[in-house]
Structures are given as structure tokens and as C-alpha cells.
């Protein structure tokens, strides 16, 4: 009997926990219903017709200052009109957006709007609506910077709406550069930059001393930018042959291997949780262990603050940003890309929701909001009119080198290359770069293996 009682008590406990969970599950929902009910009653007394706003579920992967900037725009949009209600969902990363979207397409629970992720992969599978089909008249397409417009266009129609632009730039410690008797002109080519090693090594930066002349960012991005300058291309002009093991690529990657492993002039942070490798790379520059690093324009705001804070703690660092160097005697030719808004094509999204999604995108990317987002994050604005916007002009005068990315995109950068295999060539290149940068394997060997693997994938789609 006693045991029976114990079972009953346990059962009741489980039921209570279960009920408690359900209450919390539904608690917000109930509160919302009550609130909206109350609001509806008030409205009903004025108008006889009650119109609920159309919900626009919006997935993004922006956190920190980027997320704050975007959410401020969303709140502004929701409070300035009553037809649509944008509901943001923060996803862990761009790759998680892809995974979550795949499941959502299968389960017919796709959101009305997404920014980031592999929009081209989904587009090639016919799972993305043309943005232009839902674009309101107020969307000024002609004002979009040429490269971004081209990147978002498919079949002469705007398929994706550019959100903001990025192209990797150099963050460097001007105080160390000056102490070494050099100027920003010495960062003009990768050769002259690496040549500064002997001059900067051991310079006292308050708490630490300079150990490395440069820290490129882990991944294939920086290598691709150098190779682009050196004339390296991903595939041949006819699009049939993978060329990532051409002499231009091998020369670049082998030189980077020598700088990292043989000469130990440069360093790569890799692995870790999420963006840990990125932050460690930044840390080394902020706290005076390296002359500089290659980073995203999105680092600008946080890096600027971090350097100021480090200065207060006794670290010597003078914040400066410049465009990427060229490789050899060539001009710089880094890639630029744009984060894109896209409207998924799925049965569970109504036409009204798609129109609403395009309406929000138009609001979020108007001149004022584009400028505000660019100021808040450091990313390059995708509209030409931003340059004439008074607040943006004032921002440029108060923040050193804040337009470095924009200038680079304007003067040197080339549009991001679109992998026709949906990512297989890029994956093979990433693997090769890791082998060289982390495992010290000769570039020729790593790139030959990568090219062979990538060619097999390219052949599959060209047959």
C-alpha cells in the first residue's frame, strides 16, 4: 500500500511538471490572446471591422550589434504601420539557417523572409521567389550599388534583395607601424607587408610585444582574395575545368605556408566554438601581439571600442583600417559579397505574406535605414544615396577609415564567385587551405587533390 502511494505521488508529480510546462508553453500565447483581445475590443468600439496584422516570420543569424541594429529596424517598421507584423527568429548561424530551412521546406513551415544562408542553393532548386515579383514601387532598384545589384540578379530579374555588403579589409596597429619606421604604403603588397616582420618583431605594446607581423583569418576567403589578385580563377573561362591548382593559386598558398610554418612570421587561429577563432585573431591584434589581421568590415565598431578599452588598460594600439594588399606586383582584387534577403517559395506562405516580406525589405533597405545599419555595424552600405546622406557623411568625418571597405569595393573588389556545384568546389578549396595552413602540407599537393575532387563534382553538373 505504501509503495502504491509512492507511485501515485510520483505520477502526480510528473503530471504537475507536465502541466507546468504546458502552462509556460502557452503562457505567452494566452497573454498575447488576452492582450490582443483587449486591444481588439477597444478597436471594435471605434471600428466595426477588426483587422489582424499579417505575420511575417523572418529568420536571421545576426547577433550582437548587428542583431540589435536589425531589431531596431524591425521595431520601427512594426510601430509605423499596422498591416504587417514582422516576427524575427534568431538562428544560430548561416549554416543552421540552411539546415533549419531544409527541414522547414519538407514540413511546410517555411518563414516568409530569410536573410543569409545559401540562398543560391535554394534558388537553383526553385525554392526562392523572385524578389522583383513582389517588389513595391517604392523600392529604388537603380540606387543599389552596381556590384550588389548584379550579385542579386538572376535571369535579368532581382532574385534577392541586397542587405549589406562585405569585403575583407586590413585592421592594423598604426602606432606599431610608425614605431617600425613604416607607413601604410608598406602594406601595399603582401610581400612588403611580410617584409616588415624584422622591423616590428619585439616592439613593446605596453603589456605584450609584437610576435607576428600578420594574422590572416582562418578559411579560404583570405587566400581566395590573394589568388584573385595574382590572377587565379576558380574555373576556366569555358566553365568546364577547375583551376584551383593553377600556378597562381599554388604560388599564393605556398607563400602563405612559408610565412606561417617556415618563417613563423604569420599565425592562424583555427577551430574552437563558433566564432572563437575569429575573436582570438582579433585579440592578438587588439592586445598588441600582431601588427594586424585581415577581418570583416563588420568588425569595425566592436574593434574600435575594443582598442579604446585596451588603450585604457595600458595596451599600445592606434586603430587603423586599410584596403587589402595586392599579391606580387598586381593590384588588389579581393572578392566582395552581399548578404541577401530572400523570400522562400513554399505553399505555407500566402501571397499577402510575400508582399509584406518585400514591403519590410524595402523599408529596411531604404537610404536612412541602410545608413543607420552601416553606422551601427561598419558593413558597407548597398545604396549609392547613402554617401550623400548627411548623417553618414558626419559619421565618416568622426570615425577613422570607416569607409575603407566601401572604398575597397569601389576601387578594387570583384564580385563574389558563385560556385556552380552548390558549394563542392569551395569545400574542396577549404579542405586544401586547412591542410596547408594547419597541417603544413605543401600547397601543390593539397591543391592538386582539391582540384581533382572539385573536378569530379563539376563534371557531374556539366554532363
Amino acid at each position, binding site marked *: 500500500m505504501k509503495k502504491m502511494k509512492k*507511485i501515485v505521488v510520483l505520477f502526480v508529480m*510528473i503530471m504537475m*511538471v*507536465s502541466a*507546468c*510546462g*504546458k502552462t*509556460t*508553453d502557452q503562457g*505567452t500565447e494566452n497573454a498575447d490572446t488576452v492582450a490582443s483581445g483587449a486591444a481588439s475590443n477597444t478597436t471594435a468600439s471605434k471600428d466595426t471591422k477588426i483587422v489582424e496584422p499579417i505575420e511575417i*516570420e523572418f529568420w536571421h*543569424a*545576426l*547577433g*550582437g*550589434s*548587428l*542583431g540589435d541594429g536589425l531589431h531596431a529596424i524591425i521595431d520601427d517598421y512594426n510601430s509605423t504601420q499596422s498591416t504587417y507584423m514582422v516576427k524575427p*527568429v*534568431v*538562428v*544560430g*548561424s548561416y549554416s*543552421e539557417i540552411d*539546415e*533549419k530551412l*531544409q*527541414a*522547414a521546406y*519538407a*514540413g*511546410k*513551415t517555411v518563414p516568409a523572409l530569410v536573410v543569409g544562408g545559401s540562398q543560391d542553393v535554394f534558388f537553383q532548386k526553385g525554392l526562392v521567389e523572385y524578389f522583383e515579383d513582389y517588389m513595391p514601387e517604392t523600392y529604388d532598384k537603380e540606387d543599389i550599388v552596381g556590384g550588389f545589384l548584379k550579385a542579386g540578379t538572376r535571369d535579368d530579374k532581382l532574385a534577392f534583395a541586397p542587405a549589406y555588403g562585405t569585403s575583407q579589409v586590413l585592421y592594423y596597429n598604426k602606432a606599431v607601424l610608425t614605431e617600425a619606421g613604416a607607413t601604410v604604403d608598406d602594406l601595399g603588397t603582401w610581400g612588403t607587408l611580410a617584409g616588415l616582420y624584422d622591423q616590428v618583431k619585439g616592439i613593446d605594446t605596453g603589456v605584450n610585444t609584437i610576435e607576428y607581423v600578420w594574422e590572416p583569418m582562418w578559411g579560404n576567403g583570405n587566400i581566395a582574395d590573394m589568388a584573385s589578385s595574382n590572377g587565379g580563377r576558380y574555373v576556366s573561362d569555358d566553365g568546364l575545368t577547375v583551376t584551383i591548382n593553377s600556378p597562381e593559386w599554388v604560388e599564393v598558398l605556398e607563400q602563405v605556408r612559408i610565412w606561417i610554418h617556415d618563417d613563423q612570421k604569420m599565425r592562424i587561429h583555427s577551430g574552437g*566554438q*563558433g*566564432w*572563437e577563432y*575569429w*575573436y*582570438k585573431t*582579433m*585579440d592578438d591584434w587588439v*592586445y598588441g601581439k600582431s601588427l594586424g589581421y585581415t577581418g*570583416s568590415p*563588420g*568588425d569595425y*565598431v*566592436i*574593434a574600435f*571600442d*575594443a582598442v579604446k*578599452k585596451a588603450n585604457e588598460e595600458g595596451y599600445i594600439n592606434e586603430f587603423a583600417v586599410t584596403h587589402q594588399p595586392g599579391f606580387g606586383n598586381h593590384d588588389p582584387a579581393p572578392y566582395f559579397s552581399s548578404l541577401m534577403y530572400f523570400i522562400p517559395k513554399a505553399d505555407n506562405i500566402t501571397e499577402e505574406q510575400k508582399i509584406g516580406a518585400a514591403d519590410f525589405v524595402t523599408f529596411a533597405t531604404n537610404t536612412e535605414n541602410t545608413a543607420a545599419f552601416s553606422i551601427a*555595424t561598419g558593413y558597407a552600405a548597398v545604396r549609392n544615396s547613402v554617401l550623400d546622406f548627411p548623417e553618414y557623411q558626419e559619421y565618416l568625418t568622426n570615425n577613422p577609415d570607416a569607409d575603407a571597405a566601401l572604398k575597397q569595393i569601389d576601387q578594387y573588389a570583384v564580385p563574389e564567385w558563385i560556385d556552380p556545384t552548390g558549394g563542392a568546389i569551395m569545400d574542396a578549396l577549404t579542405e586544401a587551405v586547412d591542410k596547408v595552413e594547419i597541417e603544413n602540407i605543401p600547397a601543390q599537393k593539397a591543391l592538386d587533390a582539391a582540384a581533382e575532387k572539385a573536378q569530379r563534382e563539376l563534371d557531374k553538373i556539366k554532363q
Partner: protein
Amino acid sequence: MKKDKKIKLVKHCFLIPSSILFAFPFLWMVFGIFKTNNEIWQTPYQLLPGAWDTGRVLDSLQNIQFGRYIFNSFYVGFVGTIVMLIASTLFTYAIVFMGNRYMQWLFYLVLAIYMLPGAVTYVPVYVILANIGLVDSLTGLMFSYVASVFAVFYLRQSFKKMSKDYVEAARIDGANHWKILRHVIFPLNKSAFYTVFVLTFVQQYNNYMWPSILLKDQNKYLISQGLRQFFIQDGAYGMNWSEVMLASTVTIIPVIIIFILGQRWFVTGIMEDSGLK
């Protein structure tokens, strides 16, 4: 006697470094709570912090706001595991004690499913849950955990090692299936039940990938997703690593408590044959 001492010494020489090796990440995390960012990353690394600033730690504890995530994880881990255990026990009882040749085939079929990588099942399970309206709900998450092949396999091994004489004796005395389960099977396989409970609880408590696909509402996130928030922030450079260490420590404390409370049962379940005592 001397030989015993020598063996003991050798054992300790092996076990002490092994213990330090296994405890090191945990100690690194706990001491990290009191370190500044620079102390955490400085080379050469230092295990102990420069100062034990408990005031700052208490402030951080208020900042991390993990209460909701811990509750969700606990709710899913506890209720989900209990429901899963009930379902698995009934199924295992059927295939072991109500066995006929079809039951054996059914078991082999279930075992074959165990060989499937978890990620392969994400999309089909998501579609099923979407069709019954359980996407983005903790109920849906627990529902997807109800059928556990691991639990069936583990309990079956335990039930089979148990002498069937007890079950037959109970039947002769007129006990029905429920009574046999309650008064014979459960007491004789307590350690197996506990082992399955702890392992499944920990797995459900810590799970990241599947909940992150299924859940959208931040209020329903599990602790692992809450913890991940510290790392996903695109451009969230300058993160407070001591807070990350604190959040990680807070995350694993419930699991450690559960393990310590039931350590005796857990170890018995792993080490010894169940049933014949």
C-alpha cells in the same frame, strides 16, 4: 601483503594522472569563472585566477538569466525520459516475456533502426511533427524522444539476464502483466532503469542540434541553445569569457547532482549483471 601494496601503488600511479587529465577541463572551466578575458587567453596558460572576485561572479550570475533555459531542459529531460522509460519498458516486456518468433523479428527491426545516423531522421521526424502541429513545442520535442532504441536494447539485455523463474512464479500466483512489471521486473532491474534514465536524461538535457531545428521561440530554448547564444553572436567580439564559463558551470551542475545522487545505482548498472542478486 607487500604485493598488494605494490599493486595498489601501480594502480594509483595510473589512476591519479588519469583523474587529473579528466578533471582538468572541468577545473579549467570552474576557475575560468574568476578570471578576466586576458587571464584566460594569456600564454603561458595559468590554471588559477589572479583574484577570487566573488562579487563580480554574483553579478554575472544575475546577467546570464538561464532560469528559463534550465527549466525547459529539466522539463524535457525529466518528463521526456520518464515517458520514454514507460514506453520502452512496455515494449521490452512484450518482446522478452510475451515472446514469439514475430516479437524477435520486431526486435531485430528496431535494432536495425539503431544503426541509422541520428541526422538522417531529422527531416522525416520534422515532417511528422509538422503534420500533427507539434513543431516549435516542447511537447513535440519530447514526443520525438518517446521511442528509444537504446533504452529497449539496454533493458532487453537486463531483462534477459534475469531469471525467468521469478516471472513464472508470479504468474503461478496469479499476477497479471502489470503486477509482474511492478513487483518483479522493476525491483530486479532497478539499476538498469536508473542507468537508462541518467544516460537519456543527460542526452536530452544537453541536446543541441535537433532542438535547434525544431524550436523557433526563444522562450522554449533548451540550455544548450541558451549557452550557444554566447557564441553565435556575429560580431559579438569582446564576449565575457568568465560569464561563458559561469553559464557552462551552471548548465552542468544539475547533471552532476543527479549523477552523484544515483552514483551507486549507475555504477551497478554499468558494472554488474542485473537480476540475480
